[in-house]
């Protein structure tokens, strides 16, 4: 048993009954009276100059209320990072990918809006297509953005220690190149929004977003509104995984159309538009050179990476840094050099996706480490024990491990999976593999450079004293943050969970940077805990004053006031409370004083009790360029063992078992932590085996749907044995840190390592489709045959 009455339990999520019964409202479930429907004209060409846009036919269509283009929207540049604002609300000079926004319409219904869009005539002059990084980086290639020579959106060059010198001293040096394909976040709920510009000049945007705060800023900036007049409200959100972590054009278009028409304007993406909006995982090509000593000590890593970014920067500048910096852990590595380029191409923009920047690098490296371990004759588990960081270590790129349960994670998966019994004993076609992971618990800095608090939280006690209301602008997107914060509020205040109400996801409730970089539990949780403690302190101060005792003599737990000393009588307080509540059921005489009674007293004495909390990370990171990306107040780590089967004749892989351990610092809600682990593993499994966004020669997406972009079904995903490791993070609320993204890190490499165990083949390209696996098996058989022939 823990010392806690609410946290660390398996409390059912507070939003679950509404979601189970179909009552929870997502964006498409909202409708406003007199609303119009919007539609966007998106480019049918991947790279073309816009010669002329003629909207006259669209404007004449009955039912059309507004048609807007860049002329109306202006050319304010926006994006994710101010260092790379490269988008405008509408294209004005050229289109850069199939799906680029050109114009939009508001009409009385969706059908009319879509019909009007089809009546907008655009004259294009086609430009050469750049559909790969090779084409885009070629000498003399046309520029997708005039300001970015060589189509280089961002580049990074970092060195910690002296890599060349260190490699020269190594007993084993190995170089491998590894690549994945463009991914889609593939959340179930398409993005949608309602923009409403009201008669008082306030703009309210309801949107399916992970980051109301950033959307608020972007909308205000592009539409030239004061931030205070823009409110972003997030209803329930059906998953995000990164792609909903920045403002999208639709959100601003809906607002602009509402400003033009004076009516609410609603828009919802089709699934195809979700794919075109993209902003999921980049295609990465990693070349890793790792050097180790005979005793297994990993010494140096030389890392080159090229990211195909698509037409716009989106999160790319952060992605390109993360792809390097996140290999700084979880192993002790003295020398690390990283050179990377993020390149523009005429495809939809890539951005952030669960495990931002680090997933493919992790897959590549963990596989390579397995190869090195094998060459050195070491068990992969032992090899990792040899190299892992511990509590209190700092990486060569200045990442500080304030808590680090890496060893516990590896031991747990080794023991629970039967690793020692199975490793090396499985028949051909069956394999077992392991890998580790590492991730931030929130970014050390906001996306824009600012000294802002990363979050604020307010806990208001109801005036009757019986309930606490938490206001936070954080974003519940399915991960369970509302429940986490309700639990923290209940624990910190000392009231039962059912006495806490949560209102979240609204910029009117404060500042919160939102749901990305696995930040909310640690950061928002910290602010929430402080807000609740602040409210509790105020109540206890009044109570102590009335009873003429010290605050330190009282505490509150699970709704009950606990007096530490003997003989304290509170009859006057109870009588006072009863007098005001005739007709209600009273607390029996012998019951201990309730928090509600104390809180009511506090209200009568000093007015509404409002507790406030806020969070800003301590100053983090080194002085080098890009030091900000990868810094975090804390780091999560994980280990995983995967068992799989390969059909050696067809190349089909079946994942049979997954054992996963994750150090989340401290589990506020144990069920939710497991849910994040299991969900992360599903995404990792999908990316490893099936998922790939495909294009034809014209830059048209071939599979913008769930039939052909294959995410795992219930029959593809095995059961996972989840193991929660709690290392008690000193900078986290109650010791908590991340789980939402770090858990995906070991999945792909554990599958790769298990696949090697099953087939004897190392794969360097994802996804591991039956065809790719089959071809490699066949090649190997041919080689073996040729080898035998030579003998």
């Amino acid at each position, binding site marked *: 048993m823990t010392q806690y009455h609410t946290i660390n339990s398996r409390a059912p999520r507070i939003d679950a009954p509404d979601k189970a019964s*179909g009552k929870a409202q997502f964006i498409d479930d909202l409708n406003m009276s007199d609303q119009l429907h919007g539609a966007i004209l998106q480019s049918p060409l991947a790279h073309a100059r816009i010669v002329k846009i003629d909207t006259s036919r669209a404007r004449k269509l009955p039912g059309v209320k507004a048609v807007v283009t860049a002329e109306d929207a202006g050319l304010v540049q926006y994006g994710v990072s101010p260092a790379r604002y490269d988008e405008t609300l509408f294209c004005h000079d050229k289109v850069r990918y199939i799906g680029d926004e050109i114009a939009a319409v508001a009409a009385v219904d969706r059908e009319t809006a879509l019909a009007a869009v089809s009546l907008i005539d655009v004259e294009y002059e086609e430009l050469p297509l750049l559909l790969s990084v090779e084409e885009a980086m070629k000498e003399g290639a046309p520029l997708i953005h005039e300001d970015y020579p060589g189509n280089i959106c961002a580049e990074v060059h970092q060195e910690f220690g002296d890599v060349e010198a260190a490699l020269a001293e190594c007993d084993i040096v190995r170089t491998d190149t590894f690549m994945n394909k463009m991914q889609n976040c593939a959340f179930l709920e398409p993005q949608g929004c309602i923009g409403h510009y009201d008669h008082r000049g306030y703009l309210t945007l309801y949107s399916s977003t992970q980051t109301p705060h950033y959307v608020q800023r972007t909308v205000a900036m592009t539409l030239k509104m004061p931030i205070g007049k823009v409110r972003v409200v997030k209803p329930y*959100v059906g998953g995000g995984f990164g792609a909903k972590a920045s403002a999208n054009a639709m959100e601003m278009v809906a607002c602009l159309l509402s400003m033009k028409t004076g009516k609410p304007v609603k828009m919802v993406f089709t699934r195809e538009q979700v794919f075109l909006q993209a902003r999921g995982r980049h295609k990465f090509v990693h070349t890793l050179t790792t050097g180790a000593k005979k005793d297994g000590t990993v010494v140096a890593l030389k890392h080159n990476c090229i990211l195909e970014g698509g037409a716009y920067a989106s999160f790319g500048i952060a992605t390109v840094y993360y792809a390097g910096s996140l290999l700084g852990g979880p192993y002790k590595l003295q020398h690390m050099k990283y050179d990377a380029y993020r390149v523009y191409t005429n495809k939809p923009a890539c951005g952030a996706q669960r495990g931002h920047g680090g997933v493919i690098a992790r897959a590549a490296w963990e596989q390579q480490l397995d190869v090195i371990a094998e060459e050195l004759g070491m068990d992969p588990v032992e090899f990792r024990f040899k190299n892992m960081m511990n509590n209190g270590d700092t990486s060569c790129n200045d990442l500080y491990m304030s808590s680090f349960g890496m060893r516990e994670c590896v031991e747990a998966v080794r023991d629970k999976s039967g690793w020692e019994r199975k490793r090396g004993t499985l028949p051909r076609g069956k394999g077992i593999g392991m890998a580790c992971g590492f991730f931030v618990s929130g970014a050390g800095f906001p996306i824009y450079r600012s000294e802002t608090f990363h979050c604020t939280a307010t806990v208001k006690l109801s005036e009757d004293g019986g309930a606490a209301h938490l206001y936070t602008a954080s974003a519940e997107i399915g991960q369970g943050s509302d429940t986490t914060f309700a639990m923290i509020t209940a624990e910190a205040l000392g009231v039962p969970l059912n006495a806490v109400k949560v209102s979240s996801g609204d910029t009117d409730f404060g500042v919160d940077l939102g749901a990305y970089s696995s930040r909310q539990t640690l950061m928002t949780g910290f602010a929430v805990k402080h807000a609740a403690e602040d409210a509790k302190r105020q109540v206890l101060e009044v109570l102590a004053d009335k009873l003429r005792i010290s605050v330190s003599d009282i505490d509150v737990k699970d709704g009950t006031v606990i007096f530490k000393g003997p003989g304290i009588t509170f009859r006057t307080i109870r009588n006072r409370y009863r007098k005001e509540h005739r007709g209600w059921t009273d607390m029996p005489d012998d019951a201990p004083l309730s928090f509600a009674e104390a809180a009511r007293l506090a209200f009568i004495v000093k007015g509404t009790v409002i507790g406030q909390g806020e969070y800003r990370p301590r100053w983090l990171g080194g002085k080098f360029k890009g030091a900000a990306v990868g810094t975090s107040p804390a780091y999560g780590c994980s280990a995983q063992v995967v068992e799989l089967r390969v059909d050696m004749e067809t190349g089909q892989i079946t994942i049979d078992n997954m054992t996963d351990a994750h150090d989340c610092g401290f589990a506020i809600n144990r069920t939710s932590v497991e849910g994040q682990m299991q969900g992360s593993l599903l995404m990792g499994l999908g990316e490893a085996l099936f998922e790939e966004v495909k294009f034809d020669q014209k830059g048209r997406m071939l599979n913008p749907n769930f039939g052909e972009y294959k995410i795992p079904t219930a029959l593809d995903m095995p059961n996972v044995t989840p193991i929660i490791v709690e290392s008690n993070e000193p900078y986290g609320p109650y010791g908590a840190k991340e789980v939402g993204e770090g858990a995906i890190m070991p999945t792909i490499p554990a599958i790769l390592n298990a696949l090697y165990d099953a087939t004897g083949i190392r794969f360097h390209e994802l996804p591991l489709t039956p065809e790719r696996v089959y071809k490699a098996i066949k090649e190997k058989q041919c080689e073996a045959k040729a080898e035998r022939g030579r003998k």
Partner: protein
Amino acid sequence: MKIVINVTVNQKNYELAVEPNMTLVDMLREELRLTGTKKGCGLGECGACTILLDGQPVSSCVMLAVEAHNRKIVTIEGLETEKGLHPIQQAFVEKGAIQCGFCTSGMVLSAKALLDDHPHPDEQDIRKAISGNLCRCTGYQKIVEAVQSVSEGEQTS
């Protein structure tokens, strides 16, 4: 031209005039305001719009509303009674089977159809029954556990 249909939704009879090109999911959401049925893909590939048609789960986004004439439909809103959530819904709540919740309506209805036919399915039966309902959040495990708990009689309401 609109066509008049008679349809039973959640045991209530409706006479509705619908355009032939209206999908069943749009009829439920826009005409009857039953927004518990979700639209995830529009092409019958994700299962978010699952409803029960004469007891069988189908994708309501690839069915015309006019085709529902004289049929019996149950949506997620039809499961809850005055006594509270349906045992399957309750199990989803208690087992942590719900994260974002966008697949939940469809999952619950696919599970209901399974349990109505086979009160004691094994794990593989459950996985097969929900194999047309995609979930990106949970990894399916807690959903499967929730359905199992109902079949094992853990849940009552």
